[in-house]
């Protein structure tokens, strides 16, 4: 069934086909660039391509994970005997530590029950597995094995026990795509220190390549040090308040007139994500401004 083409035919038709294909791709790109600004829109082509590829991606990442694990185990065996000696010595020390930790854990449980942390049950979550990453080198989004069928919707926050991971930017029937917090286009409202105790409010944005995030607009008068923890404020309408963002690694101190520039290492291990939780969080509706006030623009 192969169609035999002469080199002359190919030479005549190829430039025309090239121009047609390039123009088609360019039109598609221009359309996609326009759509990219709108976070509430679904990208139909991507959603369905992901949905079709998901079973194969799941299979490939499973097989690949097993393969990498096998070679890792072989490598680990070389270090095993040296480690064994060291571990035996550490074990004796650990046994003493363990009894102290058990005591602390019991105390912690009792205190937690006393506090009755209601907000823990405030929003349900969907556990999901990372089955793929953006095939392009230049961007870093992840694909989860749960989608609309599991109740995942656009802009839902994605977290791990370590901290926030990102938000859902695309949902298919059984897969969803997540933009990581390190993406330059991602942002979240955050505060350095504890909510209600600190005034170091600002906005966290991704820095891309470095794996860090940058916090801006924190008043230069606020005291911020490397090692401080940063948590979400809930004012961005995506992430609920009080979730860990990460730890301050570097501060370029500002002054009374210039804000601090703070670099934060995300609490979630974004380079080695395996399982995440998608929070079924609906931000509280924004209150419309009181139309009777004199400074409100009348509709």
């Amino acid at each position, binding site marked *: *069934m*192969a169609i035999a*083409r002469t*080199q002359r035919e*190919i*030479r005549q*038709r*190829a430039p025309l*086909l*090239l121009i047609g*294909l*390039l123009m*088609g*791709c*360019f*039109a*598609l*790109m221009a*359309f*996609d*660039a326009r759509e*990219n600004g709108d976070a509430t829109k679904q*990208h139909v*082509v*991507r959603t369905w*391509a*992901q949905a079709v*590829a998901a079973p*194969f*991606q799941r299979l*490939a*990442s499973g097989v*690949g*994970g097993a*393969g*990498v694990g096998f070679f890792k185990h072989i490598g680990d065996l070389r270090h095993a005997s040296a480690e064994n000696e060291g571990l035996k010595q550490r074990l004796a020390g650990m046994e003493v530590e363990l009894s102290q930790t058990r005591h602390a854990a019991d105390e912690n449980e009792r205190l937690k029950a006393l506090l009755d942390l209601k907000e823990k049950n405030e929003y349900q979550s969907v556990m999901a597995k*990372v*089955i*793929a*990453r*953006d*095939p*392009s*080198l*230049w*961007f*870093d*989004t*992840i*694909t989860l094995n749960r989608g609309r069928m599991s109740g995942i919707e656009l802009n839902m926050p994605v977290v791990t026990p370590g901290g926030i991971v990102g938000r859902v*930017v*695309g949902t298919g029937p059984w897969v969803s*795509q997540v*933009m990581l917090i*390190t*993406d*330059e286009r991602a942002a979240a409202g955050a505060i350095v220190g504890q909510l209600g105790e600190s005034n170091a409010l600002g906005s966290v944005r991704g820095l*891309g*390549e470095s794996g860090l995030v940058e916090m801006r607009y924190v008043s230069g008068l606020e005291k911020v040090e490397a090692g401080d923890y940063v948590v979400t404020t809930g004012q961005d309408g995506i992430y609920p308040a009080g979730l860990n963002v990460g730890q301050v690694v570097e501060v370029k101190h500002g002054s009374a007139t210039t804000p601090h520039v703070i670099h934060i290492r995300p609490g979630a291990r974004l*380079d080695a994500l395996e399982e995440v939780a998608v929070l079924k969080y609906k931000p509280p509706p924004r209150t419309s401004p009181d139309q009777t006030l004199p400074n409100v623009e009348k509709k």
Partner: protein
Amino acid sequence: MRQLKIAVVLALAVILQSSLKAVWPPLSYVDLPLIVVVYFALQRDALQALVIGVAAGLATDALGAGGLLGAGGFSKTLVAFVIASLSTRLTLDNPLVRIPVLAGAALLDATVYVLLHRMLGQPPLAPFVQTAGFKLIGTTIVGTILLFLLERMFSERARQRRHFAFRRRVAKRSAFRLGRRRH
């Protein structure tokens, strides 16, 4: 049959590209769909190379959410055309010559992809020089091996070898049967 084989190889390359990155991130520096595009572009059929290039690029774009849909299609189509045109003018069948071809393809693909994103106001996250350098090294090393494997799978010589192997097996079996009957 050949078209189906090509489609399967292409789909496998695109799916592996996204899945293996989730397993071990350094594998992302090997551009499997680009290697497939380069292989078919070296077959001196520019029309086939263009179709494979655009299909590989668009499939890669569709499976990601970061880049622009169509940017990968654009860059890979251009790479396919350049290599296909070169292969009709120069002899690129030598495995040693394929090394610079793969390196050039990786560099051209990365440059066009990043330029397109910058033009449309969507700068990529990764630093260009470092990422393009790693991609060039990874794609060239793995590509040289994979091109050899693809050659064995698709080339006319490989097809003939398989065909003759089958005929040899049939001939041996017939001789064996005939021999038994004689006894």
